[in-house]
């Protein structure tokens, strides 16, 4: 008989285990259950548009802004960020291991026609990848560029199988680190930061949205308690998410 709040979010937050760690205190305090629907960024936004969830939490800033601009969402909040890494095989055919600048590394990969596996699914990660190609002034195409159209983990596995490069969020990479021969080739570039935002679905458009609970949830996400939980969350001994300042 406790109230249900529906949260559509990306697979990366759910699969990392963060939500299972972050949500129980909120659920307990408010006597509610948060139903997590973990899908691709695009689909999460779509579920917000159709009003089938109360809150969305995604990482694709441009799409989020559009979502709000079109009146589907209100109260966008920056919650946290993690970072992307460029992964590559030990053999490093493009010679990018240890490069500090992501765009340069991407250019090298394209120039050497080393296999690169793309998410190809308009996800947050894919959007970022496209930005990087643009910055590197490359239009990727050809046999070396595989557009897989799959989830992050699967793409890491595919890149591993094909001994190619790929762009991944750090959390998923850590989860897969013992299942893939790939190593981090590039990290730490500011262009690889990956902010997550949470947005409430507009109750004017969708009157059944549980405004009270959704607001409480958004407030919780930016509360000190949540911040402590997020920064304290470790996987394999590593911190995955950071708080936006």
């Amino acid at each position, binding site marked *: 008989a406790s109230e249900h709040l529906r949260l559509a979010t990306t697979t990366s937050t759910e699969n990392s285990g963060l939500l299972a760690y972050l949500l129980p205190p909120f659920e307990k305090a408010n006597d509610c259950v948060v*139903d997590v*629907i*973990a899908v691709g960024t695009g689909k999460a936004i779509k579920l917000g548009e159709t*009003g089938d969830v109360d809150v969305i939490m995604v990482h694709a800033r441009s799409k989020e802004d559009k979502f709000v601009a079109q009146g589907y969402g209100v109260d966008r909040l920056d919650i946290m960020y993690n970072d992307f890494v460029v992964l590559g095989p030990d053999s490093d055919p493009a010679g990018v291991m240890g490069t500090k600048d992501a765009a340069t590394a991407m250019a090298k990969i394209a120039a050497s026609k080393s296999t690169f596996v793309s998410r190809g699914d308009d996800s947050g990660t894919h959007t970022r990848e496209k930005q990087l190609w643009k910055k590197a002034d490359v239009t990727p195409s050809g046999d070396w560029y595989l557009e897989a159209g799959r989830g992050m983990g699967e793409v890491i596995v595919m890149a591993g199988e094909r001994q190619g490069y790929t762009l991944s969020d750090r959390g998923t990479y850590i989860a897969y680190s013992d299942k893939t021969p790939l190593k981090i080739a590039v990290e730490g570039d500011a262009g690889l930061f990956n902010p997550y935002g949470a947005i409430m679905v507009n109750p004017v458009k969708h009157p059944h949205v549980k405004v009270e609970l959704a607001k409480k949830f958004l407030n919780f996400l930016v509360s000190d308690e949540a911040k402590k939980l997020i920064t304290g969350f470790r996987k394999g001994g590593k911190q995955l998410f950071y708080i936006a300042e």
Partner: protein
Amino acid sequence: MGYLGDSLVTAIELIFSFDREVQMTVWTSLYTSSTAIVIAPALGIPIGLWLALSRFRGRQLAISLLNTLMALPTVVIGLLLFGLFSRQGPLGPFGLLFTPWAMIAGQVVLATPIVANLVLAAVTGADNRIINTALTLGASQFQAALQLLREIRFGVMASIIAGFGRVVAEVGVAMMLGGNIRNSTRTMTTAIALETSKGEFSFGLALGIVLMTVALLVNLGLNILQQR
């Protein structure tokens, strides 16, 4: 292949740990599939019977259409019913999306053509004296059809088993319409898909083995039922 052994061990552990979450998932899988496979034959058997026994213009086309419905991908069913159950859809106000009922509805759509087609095939292959025998012994058309079904029960049961296999193994409908919500609409298959996407291959496979075990038990039960 390395993870196969791990998976077997994990599967056995999972089965005997009586982990509440695993039990819940098994239960969700089972009761959605079972409900669907009670409803689907209620629709599919009459359709199959009717297509097999009646003769009308366009019957061949109708059969081809029914065949085609067996090729309906679960994602497409998911999309279609999403439009129905979503807040903006005609059934939106009932709030059925992301509940087991939406999943059951999708699974019924999935299984009905299978049951109908296989019943059609079974009736077509049946002895054509059955109906007349029942009629001349005093059966009504409906009673004669029932008797026909009894005579070809092996084929009818095969259609139900095929339908059950299809719905218990499907992911798309459960994902789209159920939402894979933990402790609510997470089924064995969506859990497997989730674990696989997390890279937990051996855990995914272990859940697969649990699912197969459950399906085997169901089939053994049905088999015993059929023997009688």
